[in-house]
């Protein structure tokens, strides 16, 4: 197997796991609760592997991207509700990523963040317009691998590996007050939401169709999901663990998107700083592309338009106009001067509400004998799928009360 075949999974996972929201939540989770939330990452990673594999399999066998299924399975009215909610969620997320990338560029160059947001938007629009889909995934997926510096930095600080391993066991830290328990639950829900962001499956399944996957590609789909999402999870857990080790003793619960960079700088000096800034820049830029294209895919698939980057931009004009307009809309949101961290909170909150409506049709179709024939869900995939669906529904129900009770996780 050509390792480059894995880049769709790497882009999806690095963009999905270590986007701007994950940088914030992983670092804050580590500094606030030590290693006690690692298991939530591990648990959610298995969930996104299961759902991602399912969406890729449905794309390969039934040639159906996720939003087609949503319309057919939920009907027009509920489908429209899902489209509207996911549109808002993806747009806010895209704006958060553009704003995050602008901050990183500002920290790299010293140029004003607003100018950098405009430059960043122009660069990603140009790269989507010019590059074929394969090269979009390869460029941003592989450059996002600079993020591995966070795993290297963790090894260099020689953390208590036994305590990190212990974090993989489901637990609630003992002796927490009621308010701290609520905060712990809020972080748990936010991590589940951020790991299982709906845009990941919209992008991944549409990407499979862009690449003309068929049943012969199912092994690649499986490996891609395991390696890609596994890698993303490893990076997020590295950020959380370094934060527990380095930030907690300094009373830091990172409030600034640029603070996570210090996790690589403290053990590795200026080289660590620059590699971490570049890694975050490409991962966040990849996430911006992912969220924007995921939104354009959803709209085009829902209304039955021509879509895809495998076509020339003028061969799918409404799809092309949609993704360009979405990027400009995201830029406009950033240019209002809204705090990127607030955008991140809203993005995560909105996403968790969309999760059940995204995953239900996928589960139904992946088990459908008529569409999937021999490749329908087996007992394990079905059992895990429904189990995670129940978890998602509970998380969605708890999200808003926990957000209000903890002032967005702040106290």
């Amino acid at each position, binding site marked *: 197997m050509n390792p480059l075949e894995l880049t769709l999974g790497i882009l999806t996972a690095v963009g999905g796991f270590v986007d701007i929201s994950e940088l914030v939540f992983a670092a804050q989770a580590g500094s606030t609760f030590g290693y006690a939330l690692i298991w939530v990452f591990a648990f959610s990673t298995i969930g996104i592997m299961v759902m991602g594999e399912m969406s890729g399999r449905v794309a390969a066998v039934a040639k159906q991207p996720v939003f087609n299924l949503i319309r057919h399975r939920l009907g027009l009215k509920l489908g429209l509700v899902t489209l509207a909610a996911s549109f808002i969620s993806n747009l806010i997320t895209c704006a958060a990523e553009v704003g995050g990338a602008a*901050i990183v560029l*500002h*920290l*790299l*160059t*010293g140029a004003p963040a607003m100018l950098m947001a405009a430059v960043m938007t122009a660069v990603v629009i140009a790269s989507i317009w010019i590059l074929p889909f394969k090269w979009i995934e390869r460029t941003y997926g592989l450059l996002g691998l600079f993020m591995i510096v966070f795993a290297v930095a963790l090894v260099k600080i020689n953390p208590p590996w036994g305590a990190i391993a212990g974090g993989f066991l489901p637990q609630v830290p003992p002796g927490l*007050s009621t*308010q701290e328990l*609520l905060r712990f639950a809020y972080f748990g829900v936010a991590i589940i939401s951020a790991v299982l962001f709906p845009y990941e499956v919209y992008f991944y399944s549409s990407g499979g169709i862009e690449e003309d996957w068929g049943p012969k590609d199912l092994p690649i789909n499986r490996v891609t999901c395991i390696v890609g999402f596994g890698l993303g999870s490893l990076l997020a857990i590295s950020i959380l663990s370094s934060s527990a080790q380095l930030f907690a003793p*300094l*009373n*830091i*619960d*990172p*409030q*600034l998107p*640029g*603070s996570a*960079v*210090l996790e690589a*700088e*403290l053990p590795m*000096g*200026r080289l660590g*700083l*620059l590699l971490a*800034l570049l890694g975050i820049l490409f991962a966040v830029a990849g996430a911006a592309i992912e969220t924007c294209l995921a939104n354009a895919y959803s709209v085009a698939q829902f209304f039955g338009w021509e879509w895809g980057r495998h076509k020339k931009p003028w061969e799918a004009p409404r799809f092309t106009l949609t993704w360009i307009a979405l990027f400009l809309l995201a830029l406009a949101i950033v240019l209002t001067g809204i705090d990127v961290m607030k955008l991140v909170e809203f993005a995560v909150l909105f996403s968790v509400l969309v999760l059940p409506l995204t995953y239900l049709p996928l589960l139904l179709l992946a088990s459908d004998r008529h569409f999937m024939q021999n490749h329908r869900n087996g007992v394990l995939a079905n059992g895990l799928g429904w189990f995670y669906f129940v978890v998602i529904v509970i998380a969605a129900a708890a999200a808003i*009360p926990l957000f*209000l*009770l903890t*002032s*967005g996780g*702040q*106290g």
Partner: protein
Amino acid sequence: MKAVILLALTLIGGCASGRSADLPAIGQMRSLAAEWASVNREAARGRLTIAYTEGMRKAAREQIAKQAQALSKGSPAAPAAAALQALPADAAPERIARLAAALKQIETKLESA
């Protein structure tokens, strides 16, 4: 459904009245000050770039000013907030860290109240 909404509102109301409404702002200011101190400590060791140092200092100071405005009148954190705002961007990390520690003490006290 009404009962669930009432229960949620009671919980939210209960939590807000039993704890200082300033706690989130104090916690964020404490962390921002600690982040700023770390940046200045590493900058003094010559390990950061100028763009990163200045960008982080500016962001931390802006956010601290924003959180200070959110404090209620007579908040116990107001003096520390004012002292933080009076510091220059390149203040000694020890001075910033001392104020972060003072905010942490106030935070702990309010949390246990």
